[in-house]
């Protein structure tokens, strides 16, 4: 009981983790390279662009030693587009706008193609595929093909907020960006909450809410509530669930093959 924080990760911790995101800066001063725990930082030579962790970029920005080039999604035009998908598009009435594609993943346009992710290798020679948060989703020069629609990265709320606060003069129309971020947040929050209606199916095995594309801060915000709802529904429905299981067991005892098949289907639903 000594641990005072609620279960799961809290807002300030999520924001702290978001500061590890890589962003693009244009240094205004020369700076020697740094050996950091998270990896080496190249020497900064103006006006050559460089990639830095967000926390360092913000520090240099506050000291007026660098400017931050905002990621392409943090632009009024991109955000308006995403907001439109989020609120008008038929396919996304009950879903969240798609997250940025993983490397090698076919974009929304060329559905049906096999993903062709290129593996990377650890120092020990183990193969792995990079995934967020170890993919640059907030750098300016992400190799996005021109046709790619803009997408919100995992840490969109945190990165957006921090850049608005500390680097608003590097952004295009910060007032408009702030408004759009707020609208996006509200539209998506409403979607998350309307998901409560199908949560009892989730609690009873099967169904649920697809959280693809939901950001870290959004998850952190709703975690306490949604898990509380699922927990409550599970407890209220416990007697019914018990009855269902008994019925299944009975069927299995009587019906042999059919029974086991039922159980398999049951398992598949999760």
């Amino acid at each position, binding site marked *: 009981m000594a641990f005072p924080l*609620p279960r799961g990760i809290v*807002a300030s911790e999520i924001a702290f983790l978001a500061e590890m995101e890589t962003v693009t800066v244009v240094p205004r001063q020369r700076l020697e390279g740094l050996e950091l725990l998270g990896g080496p930082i190249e020497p900064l030579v103006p006006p050559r662009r460089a990639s830095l962790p967000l926390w360092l970029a913000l520090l240099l920005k506050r000291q007026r030693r660098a400017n931050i080039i905002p990621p392409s999604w943090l632009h009024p035009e991109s955000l308006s587009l995403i907001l439109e998908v989020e609120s008008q598009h038929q396919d996304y009435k009950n879903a969240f706008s798609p997250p940025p594609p993983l490397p090698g993943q076919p974009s929304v346009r060329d559905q049906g193609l096999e993903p062709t992710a290129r593996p990377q290798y650890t120092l020990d020679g183990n193969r792995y595929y990079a995934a967020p948060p170890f993919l640059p989703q907030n750098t300016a020069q992400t190799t996005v093909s021109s046709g790619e629609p803009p997408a919100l990265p995992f840490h969109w709320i945190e990165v957006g907020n921090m850049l608005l606060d500390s680097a608003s003069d590097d952004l295009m129309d910060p007032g408009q960006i702030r408004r759009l971020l707020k609208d996006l947040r509200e539209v998506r929050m409403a979607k998350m909450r309307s998901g409560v209606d199908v949560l009892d199916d989730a609690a009873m095995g099967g169904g649920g809410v697809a959280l693809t594309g939901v950001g870290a801060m959004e998850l952190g915000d709703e975690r*306490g509530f949604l898990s*509380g709802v699922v927990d409550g529904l599970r407890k209220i429905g416990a007697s019914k669930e018990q009855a269902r299981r008994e019925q299944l067991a009975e069927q299995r005892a009587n019906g042999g093959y059919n029974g086991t098949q039922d159980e398999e289907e049951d398992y598949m639903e999760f």
Partner: protein
Amino acid sequence: MSYYDIDSILTDAQKLPCTFELEVPGLGILEGNPGDDIKAGTRIDLPLWLGEMLSIGARLGTSRLVTLDMPDALAERVMNALKADPRTVDLRALAPHFYTLSERILEIFEEEEMVDVLINTFKKRAAEISDHAHNPRGAVGDGVDFLRGLDETERQLFRAAHDRAKQVRIWAGEAKKK
């Protein structure tokens, strides 16, 4: 349902009607008449922790000692009100631990329809709770009455949602100051 869980202990303290199947001398204290006997057929409201165990007394090699009835909080009348509009019912007035009481009762009685009504109630009210919890100005108007009528499970849900939303605002707000 841990042994030390305060809410579980308080749930156990909620009462339900029990009818004695046999005469028990000297047990009148249960009825508020210490020293008296309890006659067969006497109906007394007993806490769950006592009534439930007495009702399964068959283990003693005798017939059961008491039979249980549905508590008022889960009466037909209440179920109808919940079917009509879950949001207007004051659950706290019915039972401070309304849902945990229901869970216990549903273990004892088989009531499939009641499960459905309660699940629907919980969902509808949860959506409303979330709306109130995310309103930074706090509850206003009808909301005050609604929140006052939350049972303990719902209160904890409200607190969880409210605290999280507040954390996010604090984080965003502090960031603005710099």
